[in-house]
């Protein structure tokens, strides 16, 4: 594969996974300095995506594809347009900085290598999500982001809260992922292609399809769960249990935006309908307000940021939902700005926490003189978050107000936006002012500026936010407008200005936001008490609801298991064999296709002899007095069968049969000695009669089935194929082996995986020791 050009994107996609494999080893030898080396990989990926930008800005799009499962239209294909490239730049660029930051933040941590490994796995997955063209490829990467997010949230797995949050995030986003898969496949069939790039042109077909509503609901479910939209917003603040680099990267700058990405990606196909323009803005708007209100209540700086992230995601969904070109341009600028300032602010809070020992906003203060660089980053980023000039956040807010003002139902959406932004202004002020200015507060640790690794990321992102504001015209032309065009499906290029060129309604709205924000900031402490009281009065939220749902499911499962699993082996065996007998006889009775008894008399003498050995073996089993004797005797019958295989020219089969018989005898004997069974048979005589009839029925049924099968006309196609090609294609004379390792090799992979899993399961079962008191093995402490 070439090292330059569009095809090289495949290398950029592979890079993070390579870094993930290298991380544990490098971290072992280089400690935290491994971050410097490893950061090169995402940096190279960043350069690769940057090299595509000029082409994209000219309106080109790029595609590349590798065959994966062509039979089912599943390809490993990528599609690069304005939307995917900007996302890829954010992921790889911020990823580079986060790698450095993680090295500093977890300096000296024994599992640093593992952490970096998870982080890179996530990075690879996330890059895959945004550049994937094929919907199945997209889905696989999408799920991988959920799984890596689970691993990262649960990184500190010894703490119960971490485990709970990790499971919660996985259940919510993974559940949404399933809905998304159904939605994408449905869309693929309706639109006639599994490639997004082709699907994008069949918007009219999909919008008029009878399945439009179904596709819409499924895709939106996937997006809402991932992007923490109300009522699924609860998992995101809980995910703050993860180490701060994770929060900065996954839960603000990248992963949680995957849902927004998806909505933007699907906008040309699913957008611009009444359903879209109602559901999305309403839920987005509610999320915006819920997020900011819950944010006001928090005193933990990280949680304040988490809730404002929820709010920002709501704002993005709302803007995307308006389907108005200017509003979407606003969403694009805001998304870009948000990734910069929120990533930076999270890193700032992490550094404050790391250096001062707390991130409670009542216990920090006046840190600016001690941590000037971190403080500068905080101030710049907070200005961008508050939407003040000359930062890129200001431009975002101007454009988005302009968009909502002119959109359908614009008054309502503008109201949501102003209210939400005002609260965000207040929260931004809190995050920047509280820790760094005012009277010095005694912190648990004596605070000082963080190491280079710790401060590099936040200050870089903060300065980028300033630079993007200063050069907004060219950033807009190169990066932002192409993305807007991709979302709209039609070219869009309006020049952006840092300062408004005329007195538009947007400017007045901005001023109103700032005024309102200052008021909220002044009464922040009072508001916090009010919100806390209100929440205490309600006393229920989706977070609690999640626990309740889980509990109901677990109770149901316990009840069901206790009903079905009686713990009696005899019952299990009887149930299993009764079903086998039914499966064998019911079709024969219903269709009347009984096998003809023929060919029994034409046995050779030695065949009768072997059959007699088998029968004697079975008789001996039945009359044996001890179980171990019976087991050994069972082997006789098995060996007789193996002999028959041998006589009919199946040496491989016979060979295997011999070994399986031997080993089953050994293993069964071992199992039997383990179980504390009564020496005599405890079954009642009625039970014995039932078991005898059942076994006779099963035996007769299997024999009759085999007889029916050999009486069917034999189709030699396959065996002829194997005989003919075994030597020429697979270079082997033993057809059985060639089938196993070559022709049907994928089956064998499945089989050995089953053998492997069975081994693990048996091992686990053997290790379970019954508890001395009671027989409850259920692990309550998850």
């Amino acid at each position: 594969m070439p090292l330059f050009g569009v095809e090289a994107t495949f290398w950029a996609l592979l890079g993070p996974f390579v870094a993930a494999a290298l991380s544990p080893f490098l971290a072992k030898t280089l400690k935290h300095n491994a971050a410097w080396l490893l950061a090169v990989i995402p940096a190279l990926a960043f350069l690769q995506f940057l090299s595509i930008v000029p082409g994209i800005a000219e309106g080109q799009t790029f595609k590349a594809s590798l065959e994966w499962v062509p039979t089912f239209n599943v390809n490993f294909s990528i599609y690069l347009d304005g939307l995917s490239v900007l996302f890829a730049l954010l992921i790889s660029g911020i990823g580079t900085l986060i790698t450095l930051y993680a090295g500093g933040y977890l300096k000296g941590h024994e599992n640093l290598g593992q952490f970096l490994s998870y982080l890179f796995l996530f990075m690879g997955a996330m890059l895959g999500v945004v550049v994937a063209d094929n919907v199945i490829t997209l889905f696989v990467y999408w799920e991988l982001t959920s799984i890596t997010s689970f691993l990262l949230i649960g990184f500190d797995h010894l703490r119960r809260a971490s485990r709970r949050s990790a499971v919660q995030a996985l259940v919510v986003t993974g559940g949404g992922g399933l809905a998304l898969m159904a939605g994408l496949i449905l869309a693929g069939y309706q639109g006639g292609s599994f490639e997004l790039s082709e699907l994008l042109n069949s918007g009219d077909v999909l919008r008029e399809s009878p399945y439009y509503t179904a596709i819409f609901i499924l895709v939106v479910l996937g997006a809402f769960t991932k992007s923490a939209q109300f009522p699924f917003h609860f998992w995101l603040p809980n995910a703050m249990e993860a180490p701060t680099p994770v929060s900065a990267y996954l839960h603000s700058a990248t992963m949680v935006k995957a849902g927004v990405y998806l909505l933007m990606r699907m906008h040309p196909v699913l957008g611009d309908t009444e359903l879209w323009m109602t559901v999305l803005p309403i839920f987005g708007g509610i999320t915006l307000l819920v997020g900011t209100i819950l944010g006001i209540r928090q005193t933990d700086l990280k949680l304040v940021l988490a809730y404002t992230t929820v709010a920002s995601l709501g704002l993005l969904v709302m803007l995307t939902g308006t389907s108005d070109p200017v509003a979407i341009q606003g969403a694009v600028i805001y998304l870009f700005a948000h990734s910069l300032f929120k990533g930076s602010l999270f890193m700032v809070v992490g550094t404050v926490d790391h250096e001062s020992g707390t991130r409670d906003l009542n216990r920090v203060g006046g840190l600016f003189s001690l941590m000037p660089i971190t403080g500068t980053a905080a101030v710049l980023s907070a200005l961008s978050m508050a939407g003040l000039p000359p930062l890129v956040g200001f431009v975002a807010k101007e454009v988005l107000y302009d968009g909502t003002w002119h959109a359908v139902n614009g008054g309502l959406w503008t109201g949501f936006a102003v209210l939400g932004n005002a609260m965000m202004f207040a929260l931004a002020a809190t995050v920047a002012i509280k820790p760094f200015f005012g009277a010095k507060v005694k912190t648990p640790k004596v605070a000082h500026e963080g190491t280079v690794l710790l401060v590099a990321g936040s200050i870089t992102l903060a300065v980028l936010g300033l630079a993007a504001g200063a050069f907004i015209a060219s950033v807009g032309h190169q990066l932002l407008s192409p993305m807007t065009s991709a979302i709209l499906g039609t070219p869009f290029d309006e020049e952006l200005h840092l300062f408004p060129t005329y007195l538009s309604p947007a400017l007045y709205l901005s001023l109103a936001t700032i005024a309102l924000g200052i008021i909220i900031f002044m009464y922040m402490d009072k508001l916090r008490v009010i919100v806390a009281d209100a929440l205490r009065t309600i006393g229920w939220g989706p977070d609690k609801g999640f626990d309740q749902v889980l509990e109901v499911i677990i109770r149901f499962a316990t009840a069901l298991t206790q009903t079905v699993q009686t713990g009696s082996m005899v019952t299990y065996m009887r149930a299993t064999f009764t079903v086998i007998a039914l499966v064998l006889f019911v079709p024969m009775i219903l269709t009347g296709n009984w096998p003809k008894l023929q060919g029994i008399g034409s046995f050779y003498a030695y065949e009768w002899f072997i059959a007699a050995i088998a029968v004697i073996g079975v008789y001996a089993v039945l009359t044996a007095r001890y179980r171990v004797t019976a087991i050994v005797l069972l082997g006789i019958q098995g060996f007789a069968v193996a002999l028959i295989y041998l006589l009919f020219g199946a040496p491989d089969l016979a060979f295997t049969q011999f070994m399986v018989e031997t080993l089953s005898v050994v293993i069964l004997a071992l199992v039997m000695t383990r179980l504390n069974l009564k020496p005599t048979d405890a079954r009642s005589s009625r039970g014995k009669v039932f078991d005898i009839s059942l076994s006779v029925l099963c035996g007769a049924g299997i024999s009759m089935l085999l007889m029916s099968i050999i009486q069917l006309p034999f189709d030699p196609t396959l065996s002829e194929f194997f005989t003919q090609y075994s030597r020429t294609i697979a270079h082997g004379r033993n057809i059985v082996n060639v089938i196993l390792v070559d022709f049907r090799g994928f089956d064998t992979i499945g089989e050995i995986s089953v053998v492997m899993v069975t081994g693990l399961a048996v091992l686990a079962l053997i290790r379970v020791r019954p508890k001395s008191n009671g027989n409850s093995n259920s692990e309550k402490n998850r």
Partner: protein
Amino acid sequence: MNTLIFRTVAPYLSALMMLFSVFVLLRGHNEPGGGFIGGLIAVSAFAIYGIACGVSAVRRAMKFHPMSIAASGLLLAVVSVLPSLFFSQPAMTSQWLALPFLGTVIDLSTPLFFDIGVYLVVVGAISSIALSLEERAD
């Protein structure tokens, strides 16, 4: 069962069986044999050794945890599927390499490695089951 004769013979018997299992594994592509059967023979060898000399002796002889052997076998089998991708062929297309060695020709192939993987999985997983059962029987 734990007679002196059995205890004396068992190590030699299991060593021979191990050798035989490898022989069966390697001839598999052309003659009766292969990874599954070879693996089962090797497990029997371990079982005999274990019955005669105790589980800890078997574990020492195996060096690695049986499940690690099984896992590396699975990995080997899956990896042997990939080389054809480098020649722009579908995964699992067998690749052959004929190596002249001391006057004869050795056929190295991806199916061979695949079969070795199968062998290791069978050996690891089944002996792991057998050994842990024997251990608890002690």
